[in-house]
């Protein structure tokens, strides 16, 4: 490995998405990872170019699924996400709809709620700064405003700002970001963001049940200390790992999320927990558990996104949508009974 000083000179201070690297960023470790990952990216880019050559859209298929699990190159990401999620079809069927939403009726409450978060969404990203040209803050505001008007039952929920922000960074298109947000919130995820947040609470419980089956020692630790799952994983679900895991890893996860649906979130969560089971089990208090759950989202396991994505499909073992659906039903009923 090269000495760190050299790596620091070679790796740009700002990442490809516009995020400033933190002071304590480990340039040497990152460069080492990148040297192998770039080879993979190049190989995948050639394969994707061949696959997409001549075709206008991307349809779900066995080949596409296999390709997506190995990562979608940045230049094809928007097109692939739009295709497999059904967002493209929605956009094509509703021409002008997005722009009509932007000209819709004003709502001070909605606008104020969104505005409160504008300066608090990615202040460490140069593209979201007030003085950036073009400044993505205004674009982000539009997407969230349009969504709030499109889905009045949900309106705006904190966390959506981070998701829409990442969509914008990946697609560089305001309207496509809107339709992808609609695909996520309207079809892929159960009701995470509505006023009752019932889907979120349900999925946290579902994760608890899955841990009970697959990693009983961790479940026992949580029970023993009376730690509710919401305390340690609510941000994983609400932000879909934005600001939890490294940017590239989040995009790789979303590649699969758009294609395979919300069970991917459980795969990621279970992998993080299983890979650090011993470390988590050393916890001696509630606070200690919380800190360990933060710690397990850092380090080489998640930085090496390619290996991590292979692990999420092997580590947790089988995880059928039927199981998730069944658990969602029982957890939801339990929550509703509790009131």
């Amino acid at each position: 490995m090269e000495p760190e000083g050299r790596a620091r000179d070679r790796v740009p201070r700002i990442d490809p998405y516009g995020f400033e690297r933190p002071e304590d960023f480990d340039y040497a470790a990152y460069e080492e990872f990148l040297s192998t990952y770039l080879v993979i990216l190049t190989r995948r880019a050639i394969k994707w170019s061949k696959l997409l050559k001549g075709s206008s859209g991307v349809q779900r298929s066995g080949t596409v699924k296999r390709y997506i699990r190995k990562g979608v190159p940045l230049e094809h990401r928007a097109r692939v996400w739009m295709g497999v999620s059904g967002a493209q079809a929605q956009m094509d069927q509703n021409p002008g709809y997005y722009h009509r939403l932007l000209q819709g009726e004003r709502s001070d409450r909605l606008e104020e709620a969104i505005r409160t978060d504008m300066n608090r969404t990615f202040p460490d990203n140069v593209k979201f700064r007030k003085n950036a040209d073009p400044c993505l803050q205004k674009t982000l505001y539009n997407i969230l405003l349009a969504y709030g008007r499109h889905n009045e039952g949900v309106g705006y929920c904190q966390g959506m700002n981070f998701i829409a922000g990442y969509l914008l960074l990946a697609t560089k298109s305001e309207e496509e970001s809107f339709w992808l947000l609609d695909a996520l919130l309207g079809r892929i995820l159960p009701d995470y963001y509505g006023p009752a947040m019932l889907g979120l609470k349900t999925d946290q419980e579902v994760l608890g049940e899955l841990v009970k089956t697959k990693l009983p020692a961790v479940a026992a630790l949580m029970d023993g200390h009376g730690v509710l799952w919401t305390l340690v994983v609510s941000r994983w679900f609400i932000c879909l790992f934005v600001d939890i895991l490294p940017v590239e890893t989040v995009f790789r996860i979303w590649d699969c999320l758009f294609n395979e649906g919300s069970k991917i979130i459980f795969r990621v969560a279970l992998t993080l927990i299983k890979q650090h089971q011993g470390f988590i089990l050393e916890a001696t208090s509630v606070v200690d558990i919380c800190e360990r759950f933060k710690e397990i989202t850092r380090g080489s396991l998640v930085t090496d996104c390619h290996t991590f994505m292979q692990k999420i499909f092997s580590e947790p073992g089988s995880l059928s949508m039927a199981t998730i659906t069944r658990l969602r039903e029982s957890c939801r009923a339990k929550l509703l009974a509790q009131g």
Partner: protein
Amino acid sequence: MSRKKTPRSKGASAPAASAPLAANGSRPARPIGPPPPARPSLGGGDFYDVAFKVMLVGDSGVGKTCLLVRFKDGAFLAGTFISTVGIDFRNKVLDVDGVKVKLQIWDTAGQERFRSVTHAYYRDAHALLLLYDVTNKASFDNIQAWLTEIQEYAQHNVVLMLLGNKVDSAQERVVKRKDGEKLAKEYGLPFMETSAKTGLNVDLAFTAIAKELKQRSMKAPSEPHFRLHDYVKREGQGTSCCRP
């Protein structure tokens, strides 16, 4: 933020386990527990005699995270922080009359719908700091709704304090100091105006809470009773004196 984190291997970088509690907790302000069976462990700089859980609540954008960071690190997060989603916490150990008091401070998302996620934690809180933003009338008007929520979910004897934050923004102020005082009086709450930006009254608010909690949990019968209201009134700095 995840990208601010240094990639490093697991296991070697295990965070230090919190030291177990070493105080004989007595109600009503029973310290965080139950104490782990094996004690005491030496937590180095993390050593403390007694620990309490404090929660920051109030509308989205009133400055809860900034207040906490100002207290914890003595810094102001101007344009470098992100909205709090869900719930998070930070610890700080204070010296209160020779006793090391650890405050475990829970920071919560302010948006209304998150209350249904966060109010489960109210019941374990020993103290609640309820914030509004003096430049945002709606956040002040919502204080009553917050108090209703607190009444329903928190322990009945929870230590509660009302804070009007962002008083550095004199130009934009829309909630007068006397309005805050009046509301506080109505509900019998200690009250202060604060500024996470300048640091005005920030340490004082947390110190007052720590004193009250420490007193409640370990007061010797001979010790005079600590009066939170009087302390806050006496020590709290006005905001008019510092500005032309």
